[in-house]
């Protein structure tokens, strides 16, 4: 508190500044900008999804109501992309959370030499997704890449990563785990470092082993973090694009096409903008259905920005 304020016998807290509404005009431009740049396009997508707009068709676009959505229900390629999307959320995110936790525990132990490995651990965080995709594309390519060579050294006959549908799915999941586990791990680590040492000391006094203290002290305290970072990763995983584009390009055939990838193909390869918009609307609804319940949890349980 400043001398003057003290002299006046008044407390000038942030509340005093906050109670006047003057500062809102500093926030308003950003909020207005973001709304204009996001809400308008979303509404426009909904509008486009009811039109027959296609850049390959000579006829002018017209209003066709829900026809695009009806067509989606008969589109095997679209229907197949839904489970692929769900797989590319469930598998990578659960592995990222589990592995990220383990990595964070290791880093948190402050073992000699392991401190230096930390720089290695976080390396994927600074690698552009497109470069990540290229690296793995190389690794999966027969002869050029090392994956199958190293597998052959231990007597495993490596699969055709990019030519067999199921292995192509696994290939994408591996890249996603490789690329985003460090972010999750570093996040967990930051939270772990804020856990008071006394808790562990009390555990030791009660005779807890190392595994027990991780299991019964660290893990429960990180539960809100799991939720927060989990929802973050779910949203981002749903939008996974550059990796698929580079590593498999949706293939073999359409085996690794997610909903948004198919939307991209319809819109920009086939130039059927109206139809692609309908796919994107469905994509947005999926996002909403998955995210809304977790958002409510977050709003109730997580503090932000203090």
């Amino acid at each position, binding site marked *: 508190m*400043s001398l003057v*304020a003290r002299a006046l016998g008044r407390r000038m807290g*942030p*509340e005093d*500044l906050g109670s006047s509404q*003057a*500062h809102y*005009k*500093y*926030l308003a*431009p*950003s909020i207005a*900008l*973001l709304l204009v*740049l996001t809400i308008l*396009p*979303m509404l426009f997508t909904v509008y*486009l999804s009811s039109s027959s*707009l296609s850049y390959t068709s000579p006829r002018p676009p017209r209003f066709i109501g829900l026809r695009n959505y009806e067509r989606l229900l008969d589109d095997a390629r679209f229907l197949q992309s839904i489970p692929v999307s769900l797989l590319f959320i469930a598998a990578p995110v659960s592995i990222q959370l589990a592995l990220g936790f383990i*990595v964070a*525990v*290791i880093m948190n*132990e402050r073992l000699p030499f392991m401190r230096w*490995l930390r*720089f290695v651990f976080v*390396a994927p965080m*600074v*690698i*552009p*997704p497109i*470069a990540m995709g*290229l*690296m793995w594309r*190389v690794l999966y390519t027969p*002869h050029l890449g090392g994956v199958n*060579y190293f597998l052959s050294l231990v007597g495993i006959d490596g699969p055709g990563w990019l030519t067999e549908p199921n292995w192509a799915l696994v290939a994408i999941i591996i890249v996603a785990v490789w690329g985003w586990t460090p972010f999750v791990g*570093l*996040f967990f680590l930051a939270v772990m470092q804020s856990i008071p040492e006394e808790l*562990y000391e009390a*555990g*030791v006094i009660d005779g807890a*082993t*190392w595994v027990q*203290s*991780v299991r019964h002290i660290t893990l429960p305290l990180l539960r809100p*973090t799991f939720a927060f970072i989990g929802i973050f990763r779910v*949203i*981002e995983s*749903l939008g996974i*694009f*550059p990796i698929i*584009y580079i590593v498999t390009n949706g293939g073999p055939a359409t085996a690794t096409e997610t909903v948004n990838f198919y939307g991209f193909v319809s819109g920009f390869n086939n130039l059927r903008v109206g139809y*692609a918009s309908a796919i*994107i609307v469905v*994509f947005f609804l999926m996002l909403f259905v998955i995210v809304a319940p977790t*958002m409510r949890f977050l709003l109730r349980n*997580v*503090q*932000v920005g*203090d």
Partner: protein
Amino acid sequence: MKRRSTVTTFSLYTVGTLYGAAVLFPIVWMLMLALKSQLDAFAYPPLLIFEPTLEHFSAIFQDREFLEAIANSIIISSGSVFFAMLFAIPATFALTIMQRRARRNALLTILLIRTAPGMIYLLPYFVVYSRLGMLDTHMALIIIYLIFNVPLIIWTLMPVWSAVPRELRESGMIDGASLWQILFLIELPLVRIGIIASGIVAFLFAWNEFLFAVVISANDSVTLAVAITRYMGYEGTEWGKLAAAAAVMMLPGIVFGFLIQRYMITGLTAGAIKG
């Protein structure tokens, strides 16, 4: 400190080392590919020891299109950081003043916008830009990147700004300074580090972005992320050049990323964890 048995310590080292190796393997492999001659690249079993060559690097740096792509990426990334700052700095300032509840709701809304997959915005921008004749311009991408960079900067800057002592603001108020003066004369100089860090985070976002770039930029404004994929051409992939180009693209992230590593997640961790 927690008590650790020898077995536990040993397992931690083993798992840590294995994971570290798995992380390094693709990076090292690609750098090796960038330094191998075409002949060595396709040798089987793969050559782990070989005579390195810089031919691919010198080839891409003589490629006019590649150099232009670097210039485009720099223009677009810095442009989007500059305009995003104009919005994000006053916004962050306002957020530090706001009441806790309102601030939290605003921050979560902003985070959600930044996290939403770009695909849900992409088609309309393509349609509108093509009507306005703005496809393949720098400005087209700069505008779109504001969607992600304004929130990104706010979130990265927020924890730094929150640490500025409130007393400074109060004494400024009492001396009759306007909010504008408090922002620019008193507080902005104190959060320099945060501005630089969040600027780098935002720059890297734009530098790395692919989805919008591949659709909106084609020739005049083609970014590095998109230009690289052209080495996967129709006449077979030029693997050496591809690997060298990817290495060049990774450079800013590696150089700046380690400098600001702490800030890349502080925006999210600050306070988000007192669950």
